[in-house]
């Protein structure tokens, strides 16, 4: 009786929380400072890209534009010259898209089939192939730049878009295969056996059983490839001709142009345009990306 009475008289409701604990101040303070550190340059870029040149010369770096103009964006997209071409970044954008789509699809498809075959179908030499792939993931790209030039020249793809697609596909292979292999290895062998008894073959199991289960991993792989290929500069500048330069290379040529006045607003606009795609991808897929990463790593 005594005990239950004392319980009845005690405080009720949810456990009270204090907002301003030492820990909270530390965590939120750090987060705020880091956010400012990363957001400030972005702010400067956006602001500058919306100003006219006179205002940039006279005004303050951090001040918002007095008079908003989209002229720098238009110029960056469709008028600015690089080399002999004066059709702006739109050319590089088009090139990048034409490189991105086949490279992403090819590399992910091949890597997922590789990962599936390596983890579920033990064949002679499968361990060796896997070891070679792992080693491939750790070789610095620079050491292979020139050998790849020779290979592309020999097969007649040097300087073409398809040559670059091939390079992206090959260089993405080790890490993507590893991701897919680890995921497929976590799928129980009994499921694979059940499908074999049910009369599904290599491709039947891949398309009907494995692929639907691997959707989160495909999302992660797509994000990795899209941002990686879109942001690539080195392979683009080495393996393509000026007419086929991807956006990053063209952006570099615009920003680093030595002739004429430096048009900071156009440069800023061009930079923002070239960063829009990865940015959108991250914004749209943030949640999916995290979910995919955790499901791929927990299971792998």
């Amino acid at each position, binding site marked *: 009786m005594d005990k239950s009475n004392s319980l009845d008289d005690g405080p009720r409701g949810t456990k009270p929380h204090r907002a301003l604990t030492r820990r909270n101040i530390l965590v939120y303070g750090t987060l705020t400072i880091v956010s400012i550190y990363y957001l400030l340059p972005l702010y400067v870029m956006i602001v500058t890209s919306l100003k006219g040149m006179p205002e940039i010369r006279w005004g303050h770096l951090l001040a918002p534009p007095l008079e908003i103009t989209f002229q720098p964006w238009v110029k960056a997209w469709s008028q600015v010259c690089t080399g002999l071409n004066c059709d702006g970044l739109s050319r590089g954008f088009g090139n990048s898209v034409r490189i991105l789509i086949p490279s992403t699809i090819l590399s992910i498809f091949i890597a997922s089939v590789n990962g599936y075959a390596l983890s579920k179908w033990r064949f002679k030499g499968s361990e060796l192939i896997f070891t070679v792939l792992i080693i491939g993931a750790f070789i610095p790209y620079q050491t292979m730049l020139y050998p790849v030039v020779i290979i592309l020249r020999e097969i007649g793809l040097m300087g073409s878009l398809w040559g670059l697609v091939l390079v992206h596909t090959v260089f993405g292979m080790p890490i993507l295969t590893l991701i897919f292999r680890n995921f497929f290895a976590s799928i129980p062998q009994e499921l694979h056996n*059940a499908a074999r008894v*049910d009369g599904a073959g290599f491709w039947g199991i891949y398309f*009907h059983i494995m692929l639907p289960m691997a959707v989160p991993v495909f999302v992660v792989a797509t994000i990795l490839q899209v941002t990686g290929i879109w942001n690539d500069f080195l392979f683009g500048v080495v393996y393509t001709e000026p007419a086929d330069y991807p956006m990053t290379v063209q952006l570099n040529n615009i920003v680093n142009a030595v002739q004429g006045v430096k048009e900071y607003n156009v440069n800023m606009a061009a930079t923002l345009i070239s960063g829009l795609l990865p940015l959108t991808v991250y914004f749209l897929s943030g949640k999916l990306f995290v979910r995919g990463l955790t499901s791929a790593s927990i299971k792998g």
Partner: protein
Amino acid sequence: MASVSVRDLTVRFGAESILESLNLDIKAGEFLVLLGASGCGKSTLLNCIAGLVDFEDGQIFINEQNVTWSEPKDRGVGMVFQSFALYPSMTVEKNLSFSLRNARLSKSDINARVRRASKILRIEKLLLRKPSQLSGGQRQRVAIGRALVRDVNVFLLDEPLSNLDAKLRAELRVELNRLHKRLEKTTMVYVTHDQIEAMTLADRIAVMRDGIIQQLDSPITVYNVPVNRYVAEFIGSPSINMIGGVIDNQANQLTFQTRGITVDLSRYVFSHKVRTTSVTLGVRPEHIHVGESRVPGVFNCRIFVDLVEPMGSDTLIWATVFGNTLRVRLNGQSDVQPGDALSVYFDPANTSLFANDTNLRL
């Protein structure tokens, strides 16, 4: 109707030999249970019959056809797995019809077969659900249905009930029994480490240990006449009493002797010639009865109760007799208390004698 024959099967994983020249003949329409402790190679043997393992040596025949090199789908076998192994992205209906679609059957044929199988297993209402929306028992029904739709000759079941809780396991066990009666032409090969499943379902039990089949007999024979000590101890719960001692032969009167006990063996039926004197006597706890027997040759003694475990339907008594521990199982409930002395008897005809050097039954 299809028989299954395994001839000189040898399986190695790396350097480790899992099965060595194993032979097994399963009759058409038979319910054969492979019983053994975990890791003894039961699943490996089943997977070999299904065609899921590349084995070193040997041949497999199903329905007198040599299927050693056939694909799993061409062997006329259906398989049910311990983990259910349902395709998680497909509905129950798609799970059931997957094999039929792979075999490119007509839509109407597929529908008819799915309907028939789901009716037998009472899963008609679940057809549109995903496996993640099913309970364990429902999942296993779907897994059985997946083999059922195909009209296979041989059902291979790999511990199909071991992932279910005790009550469901008992229910599904009865259903499997019914299913086998219903599919009287279908041969069933059933892997389990659970002796109750083995005893209740099997026409014949193959007791396995370390990749070797110890005994292949009807459940009652395996229970009453175990070929060796391992089989005797593996089957039966609570397990058989084992009492070490010697065989004594005086004036053509064979007796088993150990500390303070002399058991007259005139009623024991020897199946082998006695070549050793050092033996172990096995007596099942349920073969020891309270009271006294006047039948000549039956063994009577007094035991001292150490511990009583009431189980409702029966009572397990741990007792000692001249320093030997004895488990006695009494039917129903009993008011025996620890410290009591009891008169008990058992019939040597119901016991097993094992030679200590070979562990084989005498």
